[in-house]
């Protein structure tokens, strides 16, 4: 059975649950658990998939619940319309929640979202003319479909159906282009931007999708309960949702729902056996979550996955030897690149200056890179080489000067737009997406060339595009010598393999200009030779390359032009032979040779 078929079977099983619990109270309880499972999936999407911590999701749930309930009670809207409106308003509030994430990270973002949840909670309590204040709303009409109110069985079935749809969509999203962008931003913002992914859009998109899910959960909750009050959405509920997502496992889109089921299931569905649990809910589950996370850092889902993996391995060969996992040389196949007609000056840098505090990293740097050439940038450590690459790719904004690509000013553009224009780069300290597989890293590198946003991702559309792109990605991985490592996570690769993977990711963009920061680092001599030949083949295919490197044989055998930086200034420039013999270069950079 394929994993996809297995997933569908699990979702179908959810729909049978309302028939397993036969009494009314249990069915209402099941609807309640379903609502929280959906809300926790919202947390899994933003905090797990997109890596943005949120401690305010009860507020988003409340936004959906009170909007839907208010429209139904005061304006007499039918359930479906009120539900949609509640979901939409929560998504809108999600934009406001997402804005701090563009400026702050980690614990500061956690505080900002915690504050957001508090504010919503307070508004609900104070705006009593609209929300009923602390007393809340009573007699909210039950969910109805086609004009017929749903009873306990219908409500529970609706909750389970919505939960199944949410999980299905979250699972689709994870593997889609939009989901890859989320995960890329989570793992490395610099790497994501260099791959043409808008960090800004990915973060806001994560918050909006998550808020819509939480809002839908809130609206469902309001109508199945029939009564809501602000106290049901106080900040402790936000913690409960985060707890569920962490316990279940942030690395999986299904972790939140599983966590919610584990936390709420016993006391809600088997009240006679577990009623004592309810009172100690947070106190009891805190230590359990701590223990689980300590033992299984990726939660119950991660732990189960590993357990299954070990059982399967136990039946098979046991420990895998790593023999077939080392890299192969680069293949003669050259991945496609964007060709600019030779003879044209592709990149012009004029008077670029950049200071950090009092330290001047770049001083009036000018250079030109001709299409179809390899241009090397060398110089002592700390002379500003990497800073220059950062200014060219938009990772840093220069203080003064101009950068033009094929006659177009690019120095004021954000990094992902520069990447989308065909400028790919690698980093000195690799900026890969650690938790993603090698193939996924390369696919993320092709982001600007692929299509499909959040909606398409959630619905599982454009799979065809993706499978073509995956085919291309495998070819690129083979070209850089990583065949056989397609399914390995980037974080599990050796340093040299990671450098290769980053090169593959950069090539996936089909660049016209490739910027490489110390591509030979982590390679031994024959591997450096291979790399040189590979880059020459790329040049023959029409690619323009600007590289920073210290390995002199590599630079001398490869470069058409060499520019030497020292203390942020261009001190020498010309063909490699002239530069190599320049006394100033020998003095400041090369030295007398290793004793």
């Amino acid at each position: 059975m394929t994993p996809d078929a297995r997933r569908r079977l699990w979702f179908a099983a959810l729909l049978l649950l309302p028939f397993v619990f036969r009494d009314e109270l249990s069915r209402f309880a099941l609807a309640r658990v379903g609502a929280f499972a959906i809300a926790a999936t919202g947390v899994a999407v933003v905090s797990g998939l997109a890596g943005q911590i949120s401690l305010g999701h009860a507020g988003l749930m409340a936004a959906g619940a009170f909007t839907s309930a208010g429209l139904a009670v005061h304006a007499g809207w039918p359930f479906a319309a009120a539900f949609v409106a509640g979901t939409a308003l929560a998504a809108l509030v999600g934009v406001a929640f997402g804005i701090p994430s563009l400026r702050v990270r980690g614990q500061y973002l956690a505080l900002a979202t915690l504050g957001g949840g508090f504010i919503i909670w307070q508004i609900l309590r104070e705006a009593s003319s609209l929300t009923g204040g602390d007393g809340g709303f009573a007699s909210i009409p039950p969910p109805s479909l086609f004009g017929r109110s749903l009873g306990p069985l219908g409500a529970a079935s609706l909750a389970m159906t919505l939960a199944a749809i949410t999980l299905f969509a979250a699972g689709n999203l994870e593997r889609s282009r939009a989901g890859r962008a989320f995960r890329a931003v989570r793992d490395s913002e610099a790497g994501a931007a260099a791959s043409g992914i808008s960090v800004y859009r990915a973060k806001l998109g994560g918050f909006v999708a998550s808020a819509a899910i939480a809002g839908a959960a809130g609206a469902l909750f309001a109508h199945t309960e029939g009564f809501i009050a602000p106290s049901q959405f106080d900040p402790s509920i936000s913690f409960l949702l985060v707890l569920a997502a962490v316990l279940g496992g942030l690395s999986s889109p299904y972790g939140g729902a599983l966590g919610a089921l584990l936390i709420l299931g016993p006391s809600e569905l088997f009240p006679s056996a577990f009623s004592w649990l309810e009172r100690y809910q947070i106190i009891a589950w805190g230590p359990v979550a701590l223990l689980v996370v300590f033992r299984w850092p990726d939660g119950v889902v991660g732990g189960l996955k590993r357990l299954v993996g070990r059982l399967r391995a136990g039946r098979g060969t046991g420990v895998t030897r790593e023999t077939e996992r080392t890299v192969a040389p680069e293949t003669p196949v050259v991945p496609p690149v964007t060709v600019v007609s030779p003879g044209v000056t592709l990149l012009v840098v004029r008077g670029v200056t950049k200071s950090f505090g009092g330290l001047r990293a770049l001083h009036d740097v000018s250079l030109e890179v001709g299409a179809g050439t390899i241009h090397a940038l060398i110089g002592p450590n700390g002379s500003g080489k990497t800073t220059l690459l950062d200014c060219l790719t938009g990772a840093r904004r220069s203080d003064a000067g101009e950068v033009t690509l094929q006659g177009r000013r690019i120095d004021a553009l954000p990094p992902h737009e520069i990447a989308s224009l065909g400028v790919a780069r690698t980093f000195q300290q690799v900026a890969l997406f650690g938790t993603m597989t090698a193939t996924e890293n390369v696919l993320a590198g092709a982001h600007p060339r692929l299509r499909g946003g959040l909606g398409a991702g959630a619905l599982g559309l454009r799979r065809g595009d993706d499978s073509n792109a995956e085919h291309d990605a495998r070819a690129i991985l083979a070209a850089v010598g990583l065949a056989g490592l397609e399914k390995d996570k980037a974080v599990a690769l050796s340093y040299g393999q990671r450098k290769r993977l980053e090169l593959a990711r950069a090539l996936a963009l089909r660049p016209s200009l490739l910027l490489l920061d110390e591509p030979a680092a982590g390679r031994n001599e024959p591997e450096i030779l291979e790399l040189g030949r590979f880059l020459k083949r790329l040049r023959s295919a029409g690619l323009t390359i600007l590289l920073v490197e210290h390995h002199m044989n590599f630079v001398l055998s490869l470069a058409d032009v060499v520019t030497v930086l020292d203390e942020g200034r261009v001190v020498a420039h010309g063909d490699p032979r002239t530069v190599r013999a320049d006394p100033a270069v020998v003095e400041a950079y090369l030295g007398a040779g290793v004793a």
Partner: protein
Amino acid sequence: MLRVEGLHASYDGMIEVLHGASIEVHEHEIVTILGSNGAGKTTLVAAVCGLVPFVRGTVRFQSEDITSLPPHAIVSRGIVEVPTGREVFPDQTVTENLLLGAHAYRSDRARVRRNVRDMLERFPVLGQRKSQLAGSLSGGEQQILSVARGLMGRPRLMILDEPSMGLAPILVTQVFELLRDIWREGTTLLLVEKLAHLAITFSHRLYVLELGSVALEGTAAELAGDPRVEEAYLGRRAWAEELAGAEYPTESP
């Protein structure tokens, strides 16, 4: 001094990176491990330092079994590793980073001060930036700082994982001159290095690691003349051809 026997190592308990590697380092020796990408060099030295979770086999240091000791206990026995990848403390100044390297003899203030001054003089790149935060240094400068901090420890056995990586040629020379001085003062050195010609001129003995076990070992002279080493690691002839093709003078290694 250091004896590693039949080492199997794995990071996750599932995929094994080393399959019974054995190496030996004698007192007052310079030993280098060569190998291609993913051969397990970094894993081998990390396992010696207690940084790999799943290990089988034994690691002995001066006849004591240190296989299952925690990393800090291994450091206190006199083994210091300078890892690859520039792990400096970014929010502390260059001088503070160096001081942290002197933790083992922190009560001997005069010695600490002398060694800090010595490092700042030896590496003008660091001397000029001694009050700057380490995080504001360039990649190569952080690499130098990480090496210098390790050297502050003046350990009995110093392990360096690719000290030359990302350094300008002139700095590579300086680092290796410093390593030789440290060795003269009585520190034994174990290196992982990709620049094979440098390693061969610098070391007494070398090991070649392939696919997680030792494929070759010998003295520098033995390995320098070995055609397998020439082809797989030195590539001198290949470079000469490559450069002749480009019509540029050969860089003497």
